[in-house]
Each structure stands twice: as C-alpha cells, then as structure tokens.
C-alpha cells in the first residue's frame, strides 16, 4: 500500500513536470515566433529595396543607349569623344603577357608567390594567406586571370557533367564575396579535388568584403582541377554591376596601382564564364531561371563572350522598336558592333535574371526590371521539351539557404549566409547522391553575432533594414512632401495614416506594409493622423557643403551609384579624374535624360567651391563622397573621433 501511494505520487509529480515543460516550451515558441516575424519584416524591406535598385539599372541602360543614339551621328565636338568612350568601352586593350610577367613584386611582399601551372599546394598557400587577411599581389592576380581565361575559352556554353558513384558532386549558390562562408563550406564539405567535385552557380562577387579573395580561390581551384570544378556565370559577373555593388571599389582600394588593369581583365574573363552546367543530361544548373521561350539549342551556340554587360543591350538600326525590359529603346544609326542578336540577348538575360513564381505563365520580372517570373507550367514545358528532370538555380536569397518549388522541379540554393545583415538568413549547399537525389546542408557564419541572443540578433537585422529605408526616404524627401501636400489641400499639416501610406508607396515605389510601418517611421501620429511636417524618425543626414541646394543633394544621394558608373566609364585610365569639360557635358546629358531640374551653373559652382577643380580636372569620387549619407549612430561615433 505504501508502495502504491508513492508510485502515484511519483506519477503525479512527473505529470506535473511534463505539464510544466510543455508550458515553458509553448511560451518560448511564441516568443520565438514574434521575433521571427520581425526578422522576416526586416528581410522584406531589404529585398524590396534590393529589387528596386535593380530596376533602377534599367534607367541607366536607357541612358547609355540614349548616349550612343544621340551623340554618335550628330555631334562633332567633345561629346563625340564621350560616346566614343561608350562604344569603345568594350575594346580596351588588355596588357600583353610579357608586361604582366615583368611587373615587379617587391621583397617586402610577404604574401604568396604563385608559380604557374598552379598546384594544389599553391592553393593551400593562398587560402592560408587569405585567412591571415593578406592581399595577393596584383601581378599574380593578373597572371591567374590570364590562365583562367585560357581555360574558360575551351569550355562550351553549357558544360556537361557526368555523375559517378566514386566522386561527390556539390552545388553551391551565390557567395557574394563572403569568404568566411566559402571557408565554412570547405570545412564542412572538404576542399575541391578529383573526388570532391563542385559546381559554383554564379554571383561570386559584389556586396561582401572579400569578393577578390573568393574569386581567386575559386579560379585557382579551377586551374588545378579543371575537370572537377565548374563555375557558372551569374548576373553579378558583370563589370558594370560591379561598379554599382561594390567589387570595383574593393579592387581599387586593395590595388591602387594596378587596379585598372585588373578591372579590364575581369571584364573579359567574366564573358568567358560558361552560362550553365548540365548533369547527366537531366539536371540543368543555371544562375537565374528560364522563360517560356528558353531554348537550349540557341543557348548552346551563342557566342557567349559577346555579352559584356546587362546594362549594354544590343542596339540595332532596323526599323523595329527594340525593347529592354518594359521600355522602348531608341532607334540608333550605329552599325552592329560585336554584339548578340536581340533573341540571343533575351535568352541570356532570362537565364541570368529570372525568378520562379507560383503564378502560371511567364511574366516580365517587374521587381528586378529584367528577366521573367516563370510559373510551374513554364517549368514543365521547358523541362519536357529538353528531356530534363529538374533545374537547380540560385539568384534569390532564401531564409533557410535553399528552397524547393514547382513540385520539386525547381531548387534554389543560396550560399551567402547573413546576406543582408548578420542574422538575416542561413546559407546552404546541395550534394547529389545516388540517382541524383539532392541533399541539403545548411550553415550560418556567425563570428560577429556569436554570443548574442536571438533577440539581439533580430534587433541588429531590424535596425539595418530601417537604416537603408531611411536612406531611400531621404533621397526622395521633396517628392514625399509634395505628395503629402496633395492629400492635404487645406494645409493642415496632417494627413490620415491611410493617405500617408498611399503617398509613400507611390513615391518610393516599394510595396511594403506601409500602414504597419508608419509608426516606426514618422515622428508624430495623433488620432490616426500623421503630422508629416514633424518629419521622420532616425533619418540619416547628408553631410553636404553649405552651398548645395536641397534638390542637388537629393539628386546626388539618389543617383549616386549611377553617376559613379558613368564617371568611371569616362575615366578611361582609371585615374579618378575626368576633365571639367567632360564632367559638364556628362552632367548636362544626365540631367536632361533623368529630368532633373538643376541649373548647370550651380553644379559648376559647387565643383569650384569644393576646390575639386584641379587644373581643369575633377576628382569625381571626392565629389560624390562629399554627399555621403550619415546615420544617427554613425554620427555619434564620428563625433567622438573628433
């Protein structure tokens, strides 16, 4: 009897314990979910701004076409040399081999000294050096690029791979200069070798801090194991994209003397990257996606190296209106240069830029401004037409590093963890096992957020998202105020939250939940009305010179990247300087095409007052940096430095 009651007591006790455990687990999962919601909201902000940026590129592409169209035939003066620059931008000569070999590597250089042909131990030396934050000397970079070009030129557009039981096959997605992710993959999955084959599916560079090192590691493995390492071109393997998204800046910072040469070589090497791989004739691996008219037969025989940049579409002089994205390109009287036909161009852009969606059919990819949204029916049709089983692609950041859609026929793999910000997402890679069934492996490189709680990590992602949202708002501030006034005809200084949301979405062209974001973004809300004249919370400021008018400031913040690209193209010798004449001519063209209402004289004045006119030349980087955006937290730290 004593035993019974003690057993009962024990049962009741453990029953209580189980109930208590469930309670705590419940509560914790609720807490986690609320944090997850905030993280996803932040990611949505990042994503819509990223895609809006990509759309802005269309305007730039139009501008280039506009330049070529208007200034080759008519003008004889300095503008002609401007357009010549655009035309000739693809014809810049590369340094000959002998010159590269004679680049001196000083004794003070303690980094790796590569010998060609490369061996496995060279690559190990390289990896160790990069782990110590060393920079590979420009001469070896150039030699490596030279050798890689030779290898790539031998490859077809779509490289066939045959899987074998004795060799592993791993597929990685976007890396975007995250060297620690690449090393994490190698740590978990082993270095590439004859028995450990890898496909890297594009977007090796841009955004991360170590695009150069990532590229060097991937390229050197390609040289050592040319039959076991496969590199596909992504939409960021594009010299004009690099100008916008950070790789060009990284190169110029790390290689002050030879950066220009490296950039020119890269331009070429990119164009020789194959556009895809095909495994056992069944699995297609491409960076972006497909469209309903995707034709492997066309893709296989394109001269792929003619595609220099997505921002330089082919121009014809036929009577037919060319389209790029959803815009009409102006007719041109330029004769066909070394460029792809319109059909070939479209085929390639779709492969590099398209995204799968659940909606049926093929629609223009309005978020990115290039490529398509393709539905499950398009996938089925294309796969059937070419007897394929599935497509593995990358191009989109996924919270878990990978995603499966279209009934298992489309797999997305994305290998840059913490892509938008520390804690934003995991990275993943795929291993193909027997019968080519994919297995997924995830990771997240964590060295900054190590030791931080979930709550702190979400805080970091969230404040980063609101930071760039603030940047976007400040660059369109006057348009926003104008739009608010429209909804406030009696000048009361307030508009309903509903109207505020409508106006903001119209001006910023970002489809975000503005009704919910409102209290986070504006300073004062009273009874459901936004006092819009009180301004925005935590807006960044632009540290601009006093003489600059607010319209000028806004323009320069908004079009910073475009201007950087344009100036870079004109600056043929990459000296950082262009002539004042070229600057003025460029500004005139730019402001007329982009419909900017700023007097040319004002810009001139600015350049002079900022003492940027150095004997008839202007340092355009200094000019643009003078209009940098500074955030509240950064401001505090800057203050303390003084």
């Amino acid at each position, binding site marked *: 009897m004593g035993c019974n009651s003690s057993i009962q007591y024990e049962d009741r006790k453990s029953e*209580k*314990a*189980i*109930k*208590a*455990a*469930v*309670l*705590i*687990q*419940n*509560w*914790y*999962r*609720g*807490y*986690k*979910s*609320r944090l*997850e*919601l905030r993280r*996803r*909201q932040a990611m*949505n902000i990042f994503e819509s701004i990223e895609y809006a940026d990509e759309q802005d590129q269309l305007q730039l592409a139009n501008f280039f076409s506009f330049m070529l169209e208007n200034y080759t035939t008519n003008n004889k003066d300095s503008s002609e040399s401007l357009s010549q620059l655009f035309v000739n931008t693809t014809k810049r000569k590369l340094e000959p081999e002998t010159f590269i070999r004679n680049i001196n590597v000083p004794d003070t250089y303690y980094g790796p000294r590569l010998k060609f042909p490369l061996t496995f131990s060279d690559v190990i030396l390289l990896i160790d050096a990069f782990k110590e934050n060393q920079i590979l000397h420009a001469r070896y970079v150039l030699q490596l690029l030279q050798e890689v070009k030779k290898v790539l030129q031998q490859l077809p557009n779509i490289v066939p791979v045959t899987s074998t039981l004795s060799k592993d096959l791993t597929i990685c997605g976007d890396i975007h200069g995250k060297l620690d992710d690449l090393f994490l993959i190698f740590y978990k999955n082993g270095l590439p070798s004859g028995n450990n084959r890898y496909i890297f599916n594009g977007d090796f560079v841009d955004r991360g801090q170590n695009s150069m090192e990532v590229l060097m590691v991937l390229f050197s493995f390609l040289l050592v194991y040319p039959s076991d390492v496969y590199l596909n071109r992504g939409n960021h393997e594009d010299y004009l994209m690099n100008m916008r998204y950070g790789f060009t800046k990284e190169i110029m910072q790390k290689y002050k003397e030879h950066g220009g040469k490296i950039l020119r070589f890269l331009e070429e090497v990119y164009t020789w990257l194959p556009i895809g791989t095909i495994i056992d004739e069944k699995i297609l691996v491409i960076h972006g996606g497909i469209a309903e008219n995707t034709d492997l037969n066309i893709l296989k025989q394109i001269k792929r190296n003619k595609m220099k940049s997505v921002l330089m579409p082919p121009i014809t002089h036929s009577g037919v209106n060319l389209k790029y994205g959803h815009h009409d390109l102006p007719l041109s009287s330029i004769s066909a240069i070394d460029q792809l036909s319109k059909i070939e161009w479209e085929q390639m852009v779709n492969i590099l830029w398209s995204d799968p*969606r*659940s*909606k049926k059919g093929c629609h223009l990819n309005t978020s990115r401004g290039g490529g398509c949204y393709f539905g499950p029916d398009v996938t089925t049709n294309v796969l059937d037409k070419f007897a394929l089983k599935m497509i593995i692609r990358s191009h989109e950041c996924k919270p878990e590093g990978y995603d499966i859609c279209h009934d298992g026929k489309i797999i997305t793999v994305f290998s840059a963890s913490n892509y938008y910000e520390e804690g934003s997402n995991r990275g993943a890679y795929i291993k193909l096992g027997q019968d080519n069934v994919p297995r997924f492996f995830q990771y997240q490189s964590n060295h900054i957020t190590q*030791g*931080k*709680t*979930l*709550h702190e990590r979400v805080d970091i992602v969230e404040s980063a998202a609101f930071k760039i949202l603030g940047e976007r708002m400040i660059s369109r501030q006057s348009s926003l105020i104008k739009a608010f006034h429209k909804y406030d005809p009696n000048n009361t200084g307030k508009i309903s939250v509903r109207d505020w949301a409508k106006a903001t979405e119209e001006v910023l062209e970002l*489809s975000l*939940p503005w*009704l*919910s974001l409102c209290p986070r973004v504006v300073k004062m809300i009273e009874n459901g009305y936004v006092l819009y004249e009180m301004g925005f919370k935590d807006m960044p400021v632009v540290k601009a010179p006093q003489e600059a008018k607010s319209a000028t400031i806004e323009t320069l913040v908004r079009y910073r990247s475009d201007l950087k690209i344009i100036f870079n193209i004109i600056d043929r010798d990459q000296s950082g300087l262009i002539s004042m004449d070229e600057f003025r001519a460029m500004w005139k063209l730019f402001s007329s095409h982009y419909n900017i209402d700023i007097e040319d004289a004002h810009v001139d004045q600015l350049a002079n007052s900022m003492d940027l006119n150095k004997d008839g030349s202007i340092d355009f980087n200094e000019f643009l940096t003078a209009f940098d955006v500074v955030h509240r937290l950064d401001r505090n730290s800057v203050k303390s430095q003084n």
Partner: protein
Amino acid sequence: MRLQEIQKKIKDAFEVFDHESNDTVDVREIGTIIRSLGCCPSEGELHDLIAEDLLSQVSSRMVEEEEPTGYIRLEKFLPMMVKVLLERRYRPIPEDLLLQAFEVLDSAKEGFLTKEELVKYMTEEGEPFTQEEMEEMLSAALDPETNTIQYRDYLAMMVIDEN
C-alpha cells in the same frame, strides 16, 4: 479590440509571409504567424488546427511524412483566426504561471535550474525542443559563470524584452 483592428492585425502578420503577394502562405509558416499574433498553441493544438480547419479546402498533398504541405489562402485563414482571437483561445501564458512552471521543474527548490536539468526537461519531455531551440534559449537564459538558469531573473528580463 474592434473587429476591424483584429482583422488588420491578422492581415499584416499574414502579409509578411506572403512572398508573392498573392494572399497565400506556405502552410509551414502558419505556426509562426499564429504565434506572432500572441497565441500560444502547443504543437499538438497547432497540428490539429491546420489539419481540421485549414487544409480541408486547400489543394495540397499530404505526403507520407507528418508534415503537411501546401498553401493556405488568406480568405480561409482570416475568419478562422478572427474566431481564435475573439474566443481568446491559446491565450499567452501569464508570468506567474510561467514562474510556477519553472518552480515545478526545480525539484531541489534552490531558485535555479542547472543547465543539465533544463536541457533534460526541454529536450526530452513534453513537446521536445530541437537542438537549435535549446541553444537559443540557453544563450539568453544561462548564466555562464555558474552554469545555471536563474529563472526569476530570466523571466523578468524576457518580460522587459517583449515590451
């Protein structure tokens, strides 16, 4: 809270996971959505909710595993969730009840749990945590010097965090 406000709150949470802006979300995200609206269903209650109320009219495939697949439409989710909120089902757990729960697990009545005790309960009893969930809880709850969970302090901190 007025009906309109409740509906808006639900739509906002739903929207966050509606990646294609077509009023559908992946069923695997439903748990997160429901919980982020302040409800605390157990895993079992969640599974029943999805199976009974949400999946019956959705074009989906129940695969051999227990995990349901498919998409949930807003027009189906909204009325169900409104009902859940109006009926105050799966209410969040009040702080004092949570404290009691920790005290139950604290068999030695010392005012703290050892790391091993907490891990054992959370990963072996009830609706067990995944390793990831366990690590995440520990990162905030564990006092690294003593290797214990001072649960009173932990709860107090969490309450502040949430507000």
